């Protein structure tokens, strides 16, 4: 049983893949920060950010279809919120329709708000997607460590990444074993009961596994800190990349403030 990995294209060999993970992490944070700091309904300052992301995307040779699918997968919440704005935001009516006696108006300001929200969501999600698509997860973890993210949190993320699929395989096996006997049918009361049973069994197995993993770690001398092989230092190109993105983000925010006041 194999799953789609989070960092499917992360093992590429393009110039952006070779950039230092910490530099990329800082750059992605800078892009997201600049995106959310640009004033409400200001679209022009977002254009250079989009151009920069598109250039990075092209350099990293990430397939468009793959990226679009991933972005769609994370978009439901943003779309659900944005879709309400045209009806809720006060402004000049640009159209109306009635549903069962209720007249619903669509406002111009509401449409602009919705577009603004979607644009910002899209740019932020794109930046995050490009980061994980050009950086392997374990390298990202090392970057977190170098940027002084608490060790415990990083270790926890590492375990999650390692065991998420092992656990979901276990769940899949349990469900198959159930389906093999009930054929996916049966009274709902029984099905509900067996589902709670599955969750319980999964919890117990996870607990047991956690103990065995701890033993395996302790057997090899684990004392509370995960030491991994040293990482290569940042090159000049990495510094330049991170500095350029941060400076660009700051310049965009400044431009936004000066132009729109």
């Amino acid at each position: 049983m194999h799953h789609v990995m989070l960092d499917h294209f992360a093992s590429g060999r393009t110039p952006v893949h070779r950039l230092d993970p910490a530099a990329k992490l800082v750059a992605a944070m800078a892009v997201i920060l600049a995106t959310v700091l640009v004033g409400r309904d200001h679209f022009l300052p977002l254009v250079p950010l989009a151009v920069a992301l598109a250039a990075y995307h092209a350099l990293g040779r990430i397939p468009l279809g793959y990226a679009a699918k991933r972005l769609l997968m994370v978009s439901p919440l943003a779309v659900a919120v944005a879709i309400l704005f045209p009806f809720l935001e006060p402004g000049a009516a640009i159209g109306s329709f009635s549903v069962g006696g209720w007249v619903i108006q669509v406002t111009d300001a509401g449409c602009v708000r919705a577009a603004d929200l979607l644009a910002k969501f899209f740019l932020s999600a794109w930046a995050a997607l490009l980061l994980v698509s050009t950086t392997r997860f374990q390298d990202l973890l090392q970057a977190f460590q170098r940027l002084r993210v608490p060790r415990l949190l990083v270790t926890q993320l590492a375990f999650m990444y390692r065991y998420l699929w092992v656990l979901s395989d276990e769940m899949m096996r349990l469900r198959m074993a159930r389906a093999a006997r009930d054929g996916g049918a049966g009274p709902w009361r029984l099905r509900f009961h067996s589902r709670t049973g599955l969750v319980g069994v999964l919890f117990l197995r996870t607990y047991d596994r956690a103990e065995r993993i701890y033993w395996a770690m302790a057997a090899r001398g684990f004392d509370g800190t995960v030491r991994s092989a040293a990482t290569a230092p940042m090159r000049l190109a990495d510094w330049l990349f991170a500095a350029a993105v941060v400076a660009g983000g700051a310049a965009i925010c400044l431009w936004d403030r000066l132009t729109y006041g």
Partner: protein
Amino acid sequence: MAEPILELADVRYHYPTGPEALRGVTFSVAAGERVGLVGPNGAGKSTLLLAIAGFVQAAGTIRLAGHTLSRRTVRDVRRHLGLVFQDPDDQLFMPRVGDDVAFGPATMGLAAEEVHRRVHEALAAVQLEGFEERAPYHLSVGEKRRAALATVLAMRPQVLAMDEPSANLDPRGRRRLIGLLKGLPGTILVVGHDLDLILDVCGRTVVMDSGRVVADGPAAEVLCDRRLMESHGLELPLSLAARG
């Protein structure tokens, strides 16, 4: 007999919620010896391994590589004991195979180059050269098993102890593992039901049942004793049964 590297004297353990798992186990293993530990399910074999590594606090005396196991010496004992667990998914807990093999040596505080050298050596010893960057999740069962073996080989333990090393392996994976084990130097303790593997790899066999040692001797003799095997829920190794 050469100086014993592992000595067990009257080792006893009672699970808090279950029956007595070990009822006075006594035997010793000489340096360089290869011992198979067999017995039916629930005989206490796996518990004995956990007791030797200090994961369950058993009564009696356990000495490994000159250290008598106690709360104070448990780290020294584990440093000399290479314990390979039954499920390689428990053993391989790092995101990359290379990091996992490096875990033991790095925890021992070795220098980066030495860690790197040991990772390379250990992976070569289990025929997994170039697997440093691979994710454990994407390995086959046989590869996982060998990677798990590499994680302890990198620590250069004095005693290698393996719990059911051939479980879930296909015949080819199993043959490959047997070849590897035969080529490894040092003391090896193999626990399991794969009697043919034990006959192939180990010179000596200890049979346990209900928490006790019921037989101990040359593998070819012990494993050929049909009455002994059958009275303890075991059978003759297939290779011997075929000969009649």
